[in-house]
C-alpha cells in the first residue's frame, strides 16, 4: 500500500518539475467477469485512477472496490461486505511498468505490462499483454487478464461456491490525458 502512495505522490511531485511526461485518467474502466454453470456475474468500475509516466513507461493504478457496479444489488452487497471486505480494504492497486514503452512512440502496438496487483490486501505479480495507442494528447491502454480468486485470500462460502468462478477475467480500458 505504502509504495503505491509514494509512487503516486512522486508522480505528482515530479510532474511539477517536468511539465510533460505525465498522463492521467480519473475515469478509467475496469470490469471483471465470472462465468459459472449457475450464472454469469459482471461488475463495472468507471472511476479508475491511473497515471502513466511517458518518459519511463511506469504506471500506477488505483480503484475503489465500492465503485464496482453489479446488476444485482445483493451481489454488490455480498461482494463488498463478505468477499473483498471493502471496509478493511477499500482500494485495489496496481503499480508496474509498460515494457518497451519508448519503442512504441506515436504508434499502435502490443507490449507487456508487468507489476504488482494488490486486492484484498494481498500482492500478486502480474504480467499481461496490453494494447497501447499513443497519440499526441492521449495514451490508451486496453487489455484483459485472468486472476485466481484464491491468490487474494478471498473466501467464498460453500453455499455459493458453484456460482462464482475460481478464475476471474479482468478487462481494462484506460484513456490517459496529459496532466496539467
Amino acid at each position, binding site marked *: 500500500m505504502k509504495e503505491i502512495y509514494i509512487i503516486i505522490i512522486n508522480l505528482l511531485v515530479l510532474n511539477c518539475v517536468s511539465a510533460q511526461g505525465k498522463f492521467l485518467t480519473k475515469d478509467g474502466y475496469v470490469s471483471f467477469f465470472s462465468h459459472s454453470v449457475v450464472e454469469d456475474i459482471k461488475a463495472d468500475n468507471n472511476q479508475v485512477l491511473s497515471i502513466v509516466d511517458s518518459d519511463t513507461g511506469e504506471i500506477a493504478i488505483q480503484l475503489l472496490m465500492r465503485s464496482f457496479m453489479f446488476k444485482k444489488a*445483493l451481489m454488490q452487497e455480498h461482494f463488498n461486505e463478505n468477499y473483498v471486505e471493502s471496509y478493511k480494504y477499500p482500494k485495489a492497486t496496481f503499480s508496474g511498468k509498460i515494457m518497451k514503452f519508448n519503442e512504441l512512440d506515436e504508434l499502435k502496438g502490443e507490449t507487456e505490462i508487468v507489476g504488482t496487483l494488490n486486492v484484498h490486501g494481498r500482492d500478486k505479480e502480474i504480467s499481461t499483454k496490453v494494447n497501447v495507442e499513443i497519440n499526441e494528447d492521449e495514451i490508451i491502454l486496453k487489455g484483459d487478464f485472468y486472476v485466481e480468486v484464491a491468490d487474494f485470500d478471498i473466501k467464498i462460502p460453500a453455499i455459493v461456491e458453484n456460482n462464482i468462478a475460481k478464475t476471474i477475467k479482468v478487462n481494462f480500458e484506460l484513456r490517459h490525458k496529459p496532466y496539467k
Partner: protein
Amino acid sequence: MTGKKFKIILSLLVLVIIGLVVSFLYYNKPHANIEKSKSDYSLTANQLIKEYKEQGIEAEKKYSERIIQVQGQIHKISTLKGNSVITLQSSDSESSVICHMLPEENANVLKLKNGQEIMVKGKCTGFLLDVIMVRCILVE
C-alpha cells in the same frame, strides 16, 4: 389420502412457495432508490474532502457506501459513456468531489454552468485523489 394428511401436505407446499418467492425477491432486490432514500449526511464539498484527507479511515467508515448530499461549486461538467460527470471544486484543496450522475439527470445537467452552486445526492464510494460519488441526482 386422509383429510389431515392432505392439509399437512398443502400447508407445507404453501410454506415452500412462500419461501421461494421471498428468497427470489430478496435475491433480485433492486439498488437503493437515491431519490427516495434519506441521505445519511448533508455537507459541503470542502468539508467532505477535508474529512477524507485528514481523518482517512474514520471518514471512510462514516461516508463510504452511504447516501449523502454534497453542496459545492461546479468546476467541470463532462460526459462519460453517455452519462454526465460533475466535478465539484474545493476552495482549499487540489482535490474535488467527482459526481457520476444517473442517466435520467442528463437533461437537467445541460442547464448547469461552471461556477454554479449546486447540491448533489448520491452514493459515496470513497476517496482516491478525489471523493467519488456514483448514481447521483441533483437536489433543488
